[in-house]
Structure formats: structure tokens, C-alpha cells
């Protein structure tokens, strides 16, 4: 089963890969141009990294994204577990609620936020992770929902609880590992969204990595392109690496 070659799959992946990577590579080519010396080089990336504010802004965006991921997991995993187990009447309502952010254009949402929130909320940068959470909700909720659907949740929960685990342990040591794939996908989605979120951030007058990139773009265009490339490729690579190196877990469906 390990190295079976499926022509249909190979062709699919080839076509997809072409579509996904050609634009990326074309943009990448710009970022390694060095017009001053002719030819190619890593100058633009080196410049970006040496920019005094690069570290500040990337760390800022990274921790904001991290907080968003934490909020997402802490809020959604227990809530969804409970929804699946208890068959509550609110489930339909929450399902619908979770899709609402998809329905609103970000710019309208941003204006709503501008006029609605009291100053003490608008004054703290912590409003951003919660807003990013809302933006990611449709995707994150779906990913976790699907993951929980695919496992014998009641069975393993009862097994864990009757073995003496409290709810916290059940969720962290039993459920999350079993839906590892979904959790990883959720983290990827939420992280990518938060890292790249621009419109909402700008309209609420915050500066994070993406907004800093547009500021810096004015004086060093190729440098800004290098930075954009980095902010796209790095999460991509990191998340892919992490996924590839997580040990496999078999989920046996007994239905």
C-alpha cells in the first residue's frame, strides 16, 4: 500500500501543483532579482531580515496568530465535542452562526467594528485575535466538525470517562489526538488567515506584518516582494513539515 502508483492521482496532483506553484515561482523569481549587480541573489531577503523592524513585526503577527489559534482551539474543541455528544437543540443555531462571517464582506465588517466597539476595546491589540477568530470561524468550525463526525466520539468519550479521566484529560489526551488531522488543518487555516489579514487590521488602525510590508514597499520594491514571498511560503513550509512529521494514527471506524 505504501508506494502504489495511482495514475489518476498523479495527474491530478500534477495539474494542481502546476496551477498552485507557477504563480508562486514567478513571484519568487522577482524577489531574487538583484538589478544592481545583474543576475540573481538573496539580497532582497537579506535586506528584509536586516530591516530593524522586521523582527518586531513578524513576531507581532506571529503571536497574534498564535493567540488566535489558541482561542480557536480552546473555544471550538470543547464546544463542538459537547454539541456532538449532547445532541443539543442549539446545534442548528450554532451551525448557522458559524457560517455568518463568510457572508459578510470584510470591509463592511470592519466598518461595523469601527462604529460599534467602545474605546476600551478598540484601544487594545487583543481585539484582533478575537476578530480573526470570527473570520476564521466558518472554516475552523467546519474542519473540526468534520473531524468529530468521522470518529466514534461517544464510544471513546465513554471509554475515557469510565477509565477515570475528567473532561479536560478526555479532550486533550483522547479526542484531540484522534482528530489530529482536523486539528492540524484548523491550525493551518486559522494561522494563515491571521498572518495575512490586512483589510480589517488597517481599517482598525493597527499595524502588523502585512501592513508594515506595504509601508516598507515604497522604498524597496523588490525587498517588499521578498517579504511578501516569505510571509506566504514560510507558513506553508512550516505547516507542511509539521504535518509530514507527525506520526500516523489509525482511526478505525466501527460502523
Amino acid at each position, binding site marked *: 500500500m505504501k508506494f502504489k502508483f495511482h495514475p489518476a492521482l498523479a495527474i491530478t496532483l500534477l495539474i494542481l501543483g502546476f496551477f498552485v506553484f507557477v504563480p508562486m515561482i514567478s513571484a519568487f523569481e522577482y524577489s531574487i532579482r538583484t538589478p544592481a549587480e545583474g543576475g540573481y541573489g538573496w539580497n532582497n531577503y537579506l535586506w528584509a531580515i536586516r530591516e530593524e523592524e522586521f523582527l518586531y513585526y513578524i513576531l507581532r503577527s506571529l503571536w497574534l496568530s498564535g493567540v488566535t489559534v489558541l482561542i480557536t482551539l480552546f473555544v471550538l474543541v470543547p464546544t463542538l465535542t459537547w454539541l456532538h455528544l449532547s445532541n443539543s437543540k442549539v446545534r442548528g443555531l450554532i451551525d448557522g452562526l458559524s457560517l455568518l462571517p463568510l457572508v459578510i464582506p470584510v470591509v463592511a465588517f470592519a466598518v461595523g467594528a469601527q462604529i460599534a466597539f467602545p474605546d476600551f476595546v*478598540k484601544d487594545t491589540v487583543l481585539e484582533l485575535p478575537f476578530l480573526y477568530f470570527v473570520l476564521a470561524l466558518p472554516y475552523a468550525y467546519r474542519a473540526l466538525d468534520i473531524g468529530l463526525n468521522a470518529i466514534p466520539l461517544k464510544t471513546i468519550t465513554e471509554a475515557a470517562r469510565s477509565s477515570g479521566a475528567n473532561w479536560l484529560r478526555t479532550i486533550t489526551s483522547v479526542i484531540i489526538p484522534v482528530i489530529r488531522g482536523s486539528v492540524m488543518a484548523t491550525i493551518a487555516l486559522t494561522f494563515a488567515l491571521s498572518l495575512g489579514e490586512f483589510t480589517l487590521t488597517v481599517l482598525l488602525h493597527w499595524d502588523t506584518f502585512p501592513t508594515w510590508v506595504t509601508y516598507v514597499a515604497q522604498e524597496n520594491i523588490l525587498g517588499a*516582494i521578498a517579504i511578501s514571498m516569505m510571509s506566504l511560503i514560510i507558513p506553508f513550509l512550516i505547516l507542511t513539515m509539521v504535518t509530514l512529521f507527525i506520526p500516523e494514527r489509525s482511526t478505525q471506524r466501527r460502523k
Partner: protein
Amino acid sequence: MRAKRLIAAASAAALTVGIVVIATPASAVVDICKAKNVTEAGGMDNLVKLAKKEGKLALITTPRDWANYGAIHDAYEKAFGVKITVDNPDGSSQYEIDTMKTAPKSKQPDSIDIGPLVVAQVSPPGGKPLTSPYQVINWKDIPNAAKDPSGLWYGNYGGKLAIVYNTTLPSVPTKAADFSKAEYKGVVGITGDPTSSNQAFMSVLAASIGNGGSKNLADVSKGLELFKTVKAQAPLVKVNSTNLVTGTAKLGFMWDFNALGVVPAAKAAGLDLKFVYPSDFVLQAPPYINAINAKSPNCANARLWQEFVYSQNKGKTAATLTAADLKLSGSKLFAVMQGGQNYFQQSGADPIMSAAMTKKKLLVPSLLDFEVPATAKVVGPATIADVLTAREQIIASWASL
């Protein structure tokens, strides 16, 4: 007897102290947020002192490569030890107005730089003005038509629109009408949406005067026609630095005062850009406008910034300021620094006080390496009324061009 003398002496002493107290300049009593000019701010020395204490200046939508703002920021920061932050450098004038209305105190800007199209919103009829009145030292040198009499807003620098093009174009463009040439198909564009961007709006006006509409500045139908012809060949592209670098955009209108920032940045990216004024009609646009935000968090810096930007002095830039200079008292330091008006002048923008500065022989030469050709006629400046009328036309038809 003795008691009477004592009482007399005590009263005399009290009186003297009282007179001295009243006579001392009330620097501790100055409410800098209500100061309407440098005298009410306690003098230039006091203003600089308060500004240094505040240590921060919040600006909005002023990119570094715009009209030499980068150099102005550097000089201000170095001289006064103040950190300048810029909210959304690529933002629009409307963004500035909305920010003043809705942003929390910690995100309010100190000073704004807006286009003429939104200036009416600064003092809404029947409402409180969004800005605080302030009159700079050389207030009289700002033409009356370009300022609010009570100091709520004042014109700062104006520009002319020039054609920016990539030298790899098959031929050199010389005027607006050239935009519709077949050989430029697909690479002609505009810097933004003319219904919301001042520069894009003025581009349509510039296209209009170059297409036969130079008599009536309130009517931009000729400009819309020109862009419509271009669009019929291929959709308009956005003219910004990345698109210029990728060759997606190769031709458009831009402010002449941005040439100093854009051309070197382009060169560093391997792109050869040139600016040239149209050979037939050149648009002199109405000036950009400064004002102090009523909710300004750093009141002293807001006012010092205005004084600096409107200073007419010749003098030192950030590069030439020495450590000794920085130890000078506020007013002396101010006097040795090159003033904002001259920075604008160097970038090719027309400082609002240029007429007075020419008389006083304070104007430095512009650093632009291209000039209005002898064949061209400079049209304008358009009045705010003209511009508002033209804008209604654009709003009505741009989307369906």
C-alpha cells in the same frame, strides 16, 4: 508703631511677590491643546520643550516617498527626538476623516494632510469641527483662498500632474492624448480609483485638459472619454510601484512631486522610469491641506509639526544637523533647520507660500530634473467648486466606463 511698620513691610512684600508672579510668563498655565498660535503656546522655546517631552507624533497617510515627506520626517525626528508614526501610509483622505470620527483616542492622528475633495467634511454644517484652529507664524503668507480664516485648515503644497512611463515603451509619450495609442495597449493605467483617490481624480482632470477640455475645469467629460477609449482596447491597470516593476503598468499620470521618491526606488528594482510633463496642457491642481486634529493626543507636537512644515527657512537637513545644533534652544534650533516649505519645493511640489518666499528670496531650487516644456500651458489651479462638480461626473460614470 512697630506693628504698623511690620504690617506695611509685609504688605509691600506681598504686593511685590504678587506683581512678580503676575509678571512672570505663565508657562505652567499654558494649555497647549488650546493654543491657536505659537505665542499662545508660550513661544517657540516652550513649544519645542513640550514637544520633546511628549516624544511622539502621530501622522496619517503620509508615505515617505511622497513630496519628500521622508526627509521631513527624518529631520523632525532627529532634531526634536520625537518618534513619528504613520497610520496606513497608502490610505486616502476619506480614511483620515473617518479615523478622526471613529478611531479610539490612542489611534487618533495629530495632524492630517487631506485632499481638497474632503475638506468640506472638516467643518460639518451644524456640527463641531473635526480640527483645532491654529495659525502658523507666517500665516499671512498663505493665500486667502487656500485657508480657513479661523485656522481650521490651510493649504500646504500643490503639484502638477506629470506623465510617468517605463522607458521600454516602443515610443516616448508626450501628451495625454497619446494614452490611447495602439502601441500602448494593455499597459496604460491610473494610480487608483478616481472616485476615492485624489491623485487618480486629478489624473482624470489632467487627461481632460489634454483631450480638449481645458476651458472648463468643472467638466471632465473629455477625460472620461479618453479613459473610455483606452479601456476599450484593454482594461486599465493600477499604476503602483509593484505593477510598474512587473511591467504590468507602463504609463499613467502621477504627481510630479513623487518623482524624487519613485524614480530611485524603481531604479533599485531594475526599472527605468521617466517623468515628463505633457507638452500641451499641464494641470496645476489645488493644494493638499493640513489641519490639526481636535482629538490630537500630542498637542505640542501637532503644533510644532505645523510650524516646521510651514517654516520658510533655508538651512540644515537631517544629514547635516550636528550634535551641537541639537543642544541649541528650541527657537535657535528651529532657525538653523531647513523648513518644510523648502523640502516640498525640492521635491517639485509647489509650497503654498512660494510667492512670499520668492519675494523674500528664501526659496531653494527644485531638484526635479524635468521641467514644464515651453510649448505647454499650465492650467489651473482648479477651484474646490470645480473639483466637486467634476467629481460628481466621475462618480456617475466611472464604473460604467
